[in-house]
Structures are given as C-alpha cells and as structure tokens.
C-alpha cells in the first residue's frame, strides 16, 4: 500500500485496489468458518471514531475488527456535545495519547478524516466523510461486481441518484474508473455537482440514455429529510423520474445487476420487486462489506509511522 491511511479511492493505485480485493476474497473464507476469528490483530486496538451516527457501517467495521481479534472500541462524540472550545483536532490528539493501532473515522463533513490523520500516529481509515469519499463502500461494491461479472475492466457502470451529496458516488467513480470501467451518472440537474465531468464521468439527465448498455446499475439513497423542496420537488416526483423498477432496468443489459449502498427506501430509489429481484446483489454487498473491512484492517492497521515524524507535524 502506497499510503499509510485509507482516506479515499482517489489516492489508490490500481495495484492497491487489486491487492485489497484479492485480500478480501481470502477474508471471505474466514467468515465462512465456524470459528470466525483469526488472531492477526490480537492485542491491537481499533477505534471506531464515529462523529456521525451509522449503525450499519459501524457494525461492519466492528465485526471485521473482531474477526481479526482486535480490541474494537466505539467512540462516538456527538457533534453537538463537542464544545466550541475543543476542536476536532483536540479530540484527535486526546485519542492519539491512548495509542490506538488504527482509527476509523466517520464525519458528516468532508475532510475531517484527512485532518485527523495529519495529527495521529496511527493509520486512519475513512468510513465516510460528508459528500467526499467512502472508500470501503466503493471497495465492497467493486468486490461484488468482480464476483458477479468476473471483471471490472470494460464494464459500464451507471450511478443513479443524488451525485452532488454522495460520497458513495465519488468513491465509486474514482474506483471503477481506475479499474478501467466506464462510469455514467444520472440525476436531476440539481443533483449533479458542478464540473462533474472533471471526475471522468458522463452525466445524464435521461435515465433511459444512462442505462443503455449498462452492466451495473447502482442506485443511491435519497436523503428525503434534507433535500426535499430545495433539491427536488418531492419523493413522488423523484421516484417517477429516477426510481428504478423492472421495466426501466430493461434499458440496461439483460444481465445487468442492481446495487444499492443501503438502506433502501423501497419504492423510492428501487421498486419493491426490484429490491428483492434476482438481479439485486444488495445483500452480497453487505456480506462483502465485512470482508473488505477485514482486508483493509489487515493491510493498514498498526502501520505506525515513526513517533518522531508524528511529533514533527504537530504545531
């Protein structure tokens, strides 16, 4: 691995991605054993530093850490309880003094894992930062596609939904592009971020055109509470124009698979029938999530940089 931290797919080389996917394939076997535990990270401390609530991702990292015998500590300072006089970096420095071997960070604001990584001695894994990146989600998506399609290179991947506010979209764009896939995004114009083509994707406002010939169709979750009214008129209108169902999926290739990072708003992003359809690989994604996170912990945890180097970067 080229970098000490896993902050985003943008930083990963193709060889790094291949290495993680390969390792995760082996980790899946550990999860199939009766005793789902190996002693690899025995005596190592993995901290789940989740500023933003997330039951699923946190559980996935926790299970991954425990399967590798790490001591997993959950630390969830709610943003509101953080006093103004204690900065996020103060929290990070406090944590650093407890000598963790790996810190998994989730925050509702882009860039926080990077800033924390800059002051920590331990490697940082980004578990989602604002609308920036969610690298382990992209890796598990890629692992799922690799299993279903046998390859990633040359595939056409269409991501449908709120691209502007989606870290899953950005990480998948970087990852699939790096691995040689063509990536398209489809959304109402308000949900396509400025200059999106600079990320190497083609943007569509017609779902039909975006699905034409797609091997993989990935629907993103719509955050109703936050966005209705200002970014799109209503959930009903969204699902009528960008919701996926069996009829619309026919525009894609016959063997196209349907993915969703979960949790699915049934009847909004995906129709009920499609969620449970044969083409849906949503539960495989979840299963692969644990394997990917085991692989990431195996490859990154404990890669302490020298204390001296850490001291130097402190102001």
């Amino acid at each position, binding site marked *: 691995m080229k970098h000490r931290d896993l902050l985003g797919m943008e930083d990963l080389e193709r060889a790094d991605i291949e*290495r993680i996917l390969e390792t995760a394939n*082996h980790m899946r*076997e*550990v999860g199939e*054993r009766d005793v789902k535990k*190996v*002693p*690899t990270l025995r005596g190592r401390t993995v901290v789940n530093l989740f500023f933003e609530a997330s039951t699923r991702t946190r559980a996935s990292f926790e299970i991954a850490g425990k399967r*590798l015998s790490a001591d997993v500590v959950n630390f969830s300072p709610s943003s509101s309880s953080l006093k103004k006089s204690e900065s996020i970096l103060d929290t990070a420095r406090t944590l650093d003094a407890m000598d963790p071997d790996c810190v998994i960070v989730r925050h509702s604001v882009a860039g926080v894992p990077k800033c924390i990584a800059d002051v920590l001695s331990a490697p940082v894994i980004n578990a989602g930062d604002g609308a920036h990146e969610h690298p382990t989600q992209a890796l598990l998506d890629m692992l799922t596609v690799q299993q279903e399609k046998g390859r990633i290179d040359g595939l056409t991947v269409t991501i449908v939904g709120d691209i502007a506010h989606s870290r899953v979209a950005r990480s998948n764009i970087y990852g699939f592009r790096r691995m040689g896939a063509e990536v398209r995004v489809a959304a109402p114009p308000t949900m396509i971020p400025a200059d999106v083509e600079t990320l190497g994707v083609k943007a569509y406002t017609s779902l039909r055109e975006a699905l034409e010939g797609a091997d993989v169709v990935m629907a993103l979750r719509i955050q109703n509470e936050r966005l209705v009214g200002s970014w799109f008129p209503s959930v009903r209108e969204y699902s009528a124009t960008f919701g996926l169902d069996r009829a619309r999926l026919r525009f894609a290739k016959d063997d196209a698979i349907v993915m969703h990072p979960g949790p699915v708003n049934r009847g909004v992003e995906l129709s009920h029938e499609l969620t449970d359809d044969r083409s849906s690989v949503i539960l495989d994604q979840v299963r692969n999530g644990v394997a990917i996170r085991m692989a990431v912990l195996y490859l990154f945890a*404990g890669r302490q940089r020298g204390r001296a180097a850490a001291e130097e970067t402190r102001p």
Partner: protein
Amino acid sequence: MRIAHEIVERNEEPESLFLVAIPNGGVPLARILAANLRDVADVDVAVGVLDTTLYRDDLMISGERPALRHTEMPSAVDDRCVVLVDDVVKTGRTIRAAMDALMDFGRPRAVQVVGLIDRGHRELPIKLDYVGKNVPTRTGENVRLCGANGVLEPPFEVVLVAEGVAA
C-alpha cells in the same frame, strides 16, 4: 513414497487421515502424498489447504503485510488425524501457526507433521514426524526444490542458493 509407507505404519485407521497442505510449497506435495497413499493403502485421503499467514507471529513487526493465500478445508477436522504437509521446515514457526489455525477448525485426534526438507535452525520445540531429507544449511542460504524437467514431482533435486535469490 517412503513417507506414505511411514504414515500408514503409524496410523491404524488410514481412512481417518486428513492431509493439510501449507501453501505454497506444501500443496503439490500433499497431492503427491495423497496419490501415494491411495497406492499404498487404497484409501482416498482428503487434502486441504491451510494458509497460515493470518496466524503468523511476525505480522506486526514487518512493514508490508504479506499477501494472503488460498485456504480450503473440504473436510471437518474433528476426530481426524491431521497430517500437516510443508516443503521446507526451518524455524518451526510456520508449523506453530498452522497448528493454531487447525485448532480453530476443530479438535483433531492427533496432528502429525511432514517436512520434505528439514533445514535445522529450529526456534520452537517442534519435531517433524516424517522427514524427506535432512539438509543442514547455514543461515545465509535458502533451499530450492527442483523436479526433473521443471515439473515439481519426484525425484526432487535440492539446490542450495544464497539468501535473497527468489525460491
């Protein structure tokens, strides 16, 4: 072939044998051994592959994490006599890791170890049950197994190479 005979001599119920290869070198050897056992005792012995990487005791010391290898355990371990198969045994640390891994798969009735080459330099109290050949080496040397015509099957030729040369 000699080792197959020895295994049969030591184990009264050859049908309860389970050969577990340690990758990568142990895998072809275990296959050959299974074939030999079929010839010697007319038993179909299960062959498994057990990667020991996640059980290594030096993972956190070395910088880059080693690549994982395939693990496939087609048979349960409980009450079987498991024979671990490795090509070259030196410090004994890999065998230790393999035994720990094995215990996570169940409770074998007995565990025995085959090492085609024993180089000495043991660092743990591990004794081989079946040895192909003792090859005393210096620490600065590596051992390479070569089959005739580049195919890894008996008769083997043992080549000593300086450390650092790819095995």
